[in-house]
């Protein structure tokens, strides 16, 4: 098995979950209703937990401790897509990001449940159960708001149009794509993207929202190769602020 390719995949998955979990946690105290503060916090905790499990797999493959990996790298060393690092913005953006991301993530882990790398397959089988609830949550809100007032529909449509290029960045391939597929670790980004498109289209069809024609949307790539927006490094600095005060300390 190509370990470099495997690690590259694991970093992509783990970094996405860590950074989005961090972003979702910023909704504490700011949600449109208390129930949404709580929901975003639950999902943030799950995502943090997922990233920890994936960093643990990496640790078992010889990488540093999860805390070190998460709290001491700088932006160019991160493999997350730019989608997850964008600030939380308004609730419409955060909801649409959550919708687009979690549909992809659930499908990704469903595909990984039969990965040839058994430790990852095991984690995937566990995580996909939790991710189902995240998708259910996103669908409920997108359907609810996407069929309500003109104002809400417009907010969501704007968010969808603006977020889509970044969401397509989820399927950015790296130089290890062929090896990952050949080794049976993961069936590949094209396969995932096709399933994702079908999955989000089904939900959007039940709303007044329109999915832009994807052939007209230029994906935002770069995240998988360490190219990030100006928002990632400040996020990482904030995340590590206390951790770095005394690197010898046990917190």
């Amino acid at each position, binding site marked *: 098995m190509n370990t470099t390719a495997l690690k590259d995949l694991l970093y992509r998955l783990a970094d996405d979950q860590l950074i989005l979990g*961090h972003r979702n*946690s*910023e909704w*504490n*105290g*700011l*949600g*449109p*209703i*208390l*129930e*949404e*503060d*709580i929901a975003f*916090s*639950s999902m*943030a*905790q799950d995502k*943090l*937990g997922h990233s*920890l499990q994936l960093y643990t797999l990496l640790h078992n493959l010889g990488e540093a401790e*999860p*805390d070190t990996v*998460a*709290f001491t790298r700088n932006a160019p060393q991160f493999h997350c897509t730019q989608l997850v690092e964008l600030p939380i913005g*308004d*609730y419409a953006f955060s909801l649409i990001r959550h919708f687009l991301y979690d549909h992809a993530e659930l499908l990704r882990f469903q595909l990984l449940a039969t990965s040839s790398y058994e430790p990852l397959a095991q984690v995937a089988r566990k995580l996909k159960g939790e991710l189902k609830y995240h998708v259910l949550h996103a669908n409920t809100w997108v359907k*609810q*708001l996407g*069929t*309500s*007032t003109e*104002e*809400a529909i417009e*907010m969501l449509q704007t968010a969808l149009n603006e977020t889509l290029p970044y969401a397509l960045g989820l399927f950015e391939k790296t130089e290890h794509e062929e090896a990952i597929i050949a080794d049976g670790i993961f069936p590949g980004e094209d396969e995932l993207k096709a399933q994702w498109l079908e999955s989000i289209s089904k939900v959007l069809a039940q709303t007044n929202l329109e999915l832009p024609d994807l052939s007209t949307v230029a994906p935002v790539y770069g995240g998988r190769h360490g190219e990030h927006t100006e928002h990632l490094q400040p*996020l990482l600095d*904030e*995340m590590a*602020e*206390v*951790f770095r*005060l*005394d690197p*010898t*300390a*046990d*917190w």
Partner: protein
Amino acid sequence: MYGSVSTHDIPAQAPTGLENEDPQLLAEFEARIARGEKIEPDDYMPALYRKQLIRMIEQHAHSEIIGSLPEGTWITRAPGFRRKMAQMAKVQDEVGHAQLLYSAAETLGKTREEMITDLINGKSKYSNVFNYPTPTWADSNVISWLIDAGAIVNQMANAKGSYGPYCRALERICAEESFHLKYGHDAVVHMATGTPTQRRMMQEALNRWWPPIMTFFGPADKMSQHTEILMRWKVKMASNDDCRQQFLDMYVPKILEIGLTIPDPKLRKNEETGKWEYTEPDWDELRRVINGDGPCNKERLAVRRAAEENGAWVRRALQAKQQAAKHVRPLA
């Protein structure tokens, strides 16, 4: 967290309005309470009882939601996976407590929307301690441990009160608070027994927080008036001074045990009276802070107000959906 406040749970003048109550119903009501029965939403209750309870539960709910802010700002900075996830879960619990308490208060006839509006307008209060800043991670840990500890003292007492929905909410809340206490204690111990930097951070945080902690239970009993009827109705279950004494009994030894010092040279237990003696807290400051002039009042309310304004379109959308589905009750 967080116990019901303090100066404001006590009516400014002698209770009035009882003259409008049916004497027989009132007598039965008092007899039920004396027998230890719980009052339920549809039962008869004097208007004054309803008013005091709404005020108290509402303040408690606001304290949970505003109280989630100072620790909430440390979620994104919590050091390491373990702390980050625990801090998130802890703060989330506090928001959940607010939700439970708003529901309990709603059974008395005031909607969540109305309560939050009164919070934002400064008409109703919340625990004064959340108007103090949390400049370091250690401050957040001190809150998790000692403010939650204070809240438990308060809430365990109030859980034995007379209003059923509030007592039931408090029982659930206390169960979660005991986890917070463990979490806070563990985080404080780690720092207080850690590297020199950590120990210094923790001592400084405790020094900052000690005065607000001492006012957490409200003004001295000698300054509070007319609590007698609230005690008889089991709205208020323990006096401010009793709660403060109980807290000191339980936590001073634990604080000293981990090598921290308490910044009050007068603090000592009088072996004859069995009571703690301490420097008289600055009650004028407490009054000023509760009434809006603390270091963080404006900031805290501004955050809450912005959240309400930014989320208004979502609530409008939900309301439209609900009306379409012929539900009457507005979602706040």
